[in-house]
Each structure stands twice: as structure tokens, then as C-alpha cells.
């Protein structure tokens, strides 16, 4: 019963067999955090690091993170790169098309705050959080794959601790 072992202390199992008891919260959170499907969506330099992270060397698949091309299929969206004003409206639209619960990870300085284009970039959005709500920020220009993995683990932690009672999305 591999699955039950992963649910560890949130599950009670009767000795004789097939009945398990857990809370709805824990079951939902566990299933959400173990299959965060990601939008196949790259913006700029950080997208290359995102691709490198999902390729063989760092292997995002082991977290259950699989890239999907359509916003209707996905749970998380990684904003990976410089968001120009022209692109920001499209990102807002993609975000609106995603089914809830949905999570945003902002990757790299550009999408966190404008990055190197903060001062003179009249055409760059100074932080994606001005358009859509962000759950986790990963700093760096670009962040190393290890940093991105750490950000995703932080996001998993966040999902693990959420409750239906408080949940709004």
C-alpha cells in the first residue's frame, strides 16, 4: 500500500484491512500537492532554466509536475521571465482561464519586481503581483534549478497546510 505510506501520520488504518480514515483536508491537500500540473509556458531567460529543471538532470516529474500546454489542465503557472506590459494582459487572461485551486510561482527577478529592467524599462511590468496574486517568489537572475526546486517545495508546504474551511480560490 504505497499510497497509504505516503499519507503517513494523517491516515489511520484498521488492522484487518480495507478501511482507512483520514480528514478531507489532508486527503485533498495530499493529492493536490503531489500532482501539480504546470503550464507549458516560458517567457524569457528563466524559461530555459525551467526547461533544464524539467529535463533529465533535475527531473521535475518526480514531484508530479508535468507540463501541460493548455491553461484548462493546469494547477500551477510559473511566470518565468520578463513580463512586458503587452504580455501582462495575456497572462491575466491565462490566469483567468485556469480552473481553481490555482497557484502562481514567480520565477526570477524580472517577474518579482522588474529585475534589471526596473529602472529604464518603461515597457516592463514591475512585478507580476501587480496583475495576479503570487504564492511563492524565487529570486535570482536567473534562479538556479535548485532554487526553483526549493520554491516548488515551499509551494507544496503551503498547499499541505491549507484547509477547506479557509480555502478560497
Amino acid at each position, binding site marked *: 500500500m504505497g499510497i497509504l505510506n505516503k499519507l503517513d501520520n494523517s491516515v489511520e488504518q484498521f488492522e484487518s484491512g480495507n478501511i482507512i480514515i483520514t480528514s478531507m483536508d489532508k486527503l485533498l491537500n495530499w493529492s493536490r500537492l503531489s500532482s501539480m500540473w504546470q503550464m*507549458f509556458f516560458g517567457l524569457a531567460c528563466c*524559461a*530555459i532554466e525551467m526547461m533544464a529543471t524539467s529535463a533529465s538532470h533535475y527531473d521535475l516529474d518526480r514531484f508530479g509536475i508535468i507540463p501541460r500546454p493548455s*491553461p484548462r489542465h493546469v494547477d500551477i503557472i510559473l511566470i518565468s521571465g520578463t513580463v*512586458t506590459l503587452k*504580455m501582462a494582459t495575456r497572462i491575466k487572461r491565462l490566469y483567468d482561464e485556469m480552473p481553481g485551486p490555482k497557484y502562481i510561482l514567480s520565477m526570477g527577478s524580472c517577474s518579482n519586481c522588474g529585475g534589471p529592467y526596473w529602472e529604464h524599462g518603461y515597457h516592463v511590468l514591475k512585478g507580476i503581483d501587480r496583475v495576479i496574486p503570487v504564492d511563492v517568489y524565487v529570486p535570482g*537572475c536567473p534562479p538556479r534549478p535548485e532554487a526553483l526546486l526549493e520554491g516548488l517545495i515551499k509551494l507544496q508546504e503551503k498547499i499541505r497546510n491549507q484547509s477547506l474551511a479557509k480555502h478560497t480560490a
Partner: protein
Amino acid sequence: MSELRTEELTINMGPQHPSTHGVLRLVLTLNGEIVTDVKPVLGYLHRCFEKHCEAMTYPQVIPYTDRMDYLTSMNNELAYVLAAEKLLGIEIPERVEYIRVIMSELQRIASHLVAIGTYGNDAGAFTPFLYCFMDREKVLELFEMVCGARLLYNYIWVGGVSHDITPEFVTKTKEFIKYFRPRIKQVNNLLSYNKIFIERTAGIGVLPVDVAINAGCSGPTLRGSGVKYDLRKDDPYSIYDRFDFDVCVGVGERGVVGDSWNRYIVRAYEMEQSLRIIEQAIDKIPEGDVHAAVPKRVKPVAGESYVRTEAPKGELAYYIISDGSLNPYRIKARSPSFCNLSVINQISRGHMIADVVMILGSFDIVLGCIDR
């Protein structure tokens, strides 16, 4: 039944689309499944390189050149730095020249690996992508060893490079060359000569030589049409005239000359040639101080300079105008991807909608380079 009303359909591909290699938007006009018109819409990644340069000093511009074509940062730095040095008129130590050539050729291999991997991905083959990124990771490890960064390096400085290479780097690079030769063959077996892949790409999007030259195409896009034009041979910059290597062109081994397959295979051939250049350079590298010629203050006299180089995507050039101050008056970048993309309408017409993806992928565009 002949009175059935038909109309053309306009659909939107991008800016969020897995096969547009970034945030490119294509407006396709379709007659059934046949494409009658392709209109690229640019500007989703416009980061205003030129405006930034006006406010920066010469060395401060280098990180922004990194971020233009982020797959070929070293080549971008090299082109910009060569233009700045031409303006300054300084002599560069031999060792620096050799290091720069080694770095640009390693970067060319890394860039072509991404091009090949993602092109396979476009065709529906996911495995080559994983193989290519595994090998690319090895190149990035080498870069990390010398300058600490994986993607955007700020390594090549005006007058030198930021860090000298170590003996460990030399041995690791030699190991990499030994390791990578058979891997090229493996990728070729896996993807290039795969029947399905050839069916998808051979004869698709044939680019005639006159169209390519008129549109200013360069790099593998032009060489795929059979034109033997490579600035490393035809207008040697840095120390490229000292190395023995071949200019690879598409010869119609499969399909016809100028089609997507031939544009693609030029990159696989070129990786082999890059290995040859690195091999020669690493054996001949002289001793020296890499910081010897780095000026304390980069303040060229008023004037202008233009340097063109052969980047992995094609002809990459920088035009700098100096007014004698610490900041450049104007910098213009000639990006290869922009010119290569401009032929897409002409060669996509009459193909199926799925073929547009293959044609676009065969140019190996990078949006940071197109929009700047």
C-alpha cells in the same frame, strides 16, 4: 452542391503556445487545413536594449547583451566586446583570444543542443529533448567551473575575460570532447535519421537561395539552403582564421536542399566542427594574464564601429556610436533571428497547419533576440 459557401479562417497561434519557442504570436489564415498567410506579431518580449544602453557605461552593457539571446550569451558578449574594443583600439592578449574562442564554441554546442532537442519536441519526440539537455548540462558545468554562472555569464569583458581558466577546466573540456563525439551519433540515430522525423520535415518549407539572401537570412538557415557562407571563414574575426574546420551546408542527404530537415541537420554537423575548433584551441593555448589589457575606464574617442560575428543562430552584429563620453551614444544590435523569421510567410504558404510548427522550429528563433 457546388454552391457551398466557403470562407477563410483566421486563427491565432501564441503568444502562449508550446511550439512558438517563447512569446511569439502568429496570425494564421487558413483555407481548410492549408495555410494561406502567416503574419508574425512581435513585441511580447521587447526589453528595450537600446534604451538601456544609453544610460549604461560600456562594461555595464555586457549583462544586457547576455539577456538578448539567452541561449548564446557568450557569443553575444563576444560580438559586443569586439565592437567596443575596435572603438578603443586596444590589443588583446593571445590567451584571452583563445579562451574566448573556446567559450563561444562551447556555447554554440549548447545552443544547438537546445535547438535539436526542442525541434524533436515540436515533432512529438520527447526523448531526444531529454538526451540533449543531459549533454547541455555538461557544457553548463564547464561554464560554471570558470565563471560560476549557468546561463548568463558576464564572462567576456572589454579587454579580457573575468576569470582565467584552470588546468582542471582543460582536462574536463578534453573529457567532454571525448564523451560528446559518440553522443552526436546517438542523437543522429535517435532523431535525425528517424523515419517519422524525416517524413515530418523533408520537403517542408523549402527556402530558395534568392529568397534567403534577399531577406538577409544567415547561419544554419542560410546554410541549409546550400550557401557556403560562414563569417568565421568569410570574414574572420578574433582568431578564427587560425583554425581548421569545415563550413557545413545542407546537401540534400534527405529531402531537398533548403527544406526544414536540411536546416536542422546543419546544426548536428556544426557541433562536430565546434568540437574540432575547441580541440585545436585547447592544445595551442598560450600562457598570459587575462586581465592585462582590461582598461580601468572604458572611454573611447568619438567615432563608430561595426563588428559582425557568426553566432549559432546566424550573423550577429553590433553597431556602436560613441560621442567620447563614458556612455555609448547609441548601440544597435543586428539580430539573426529577426531576419530569419521574416521569410516564414513566404515559405509556409501552401503547407498544412502542422507544418508551420516544423518550419518555425527549423529557424531556431529566440524571442529575446528578435524583440531585443
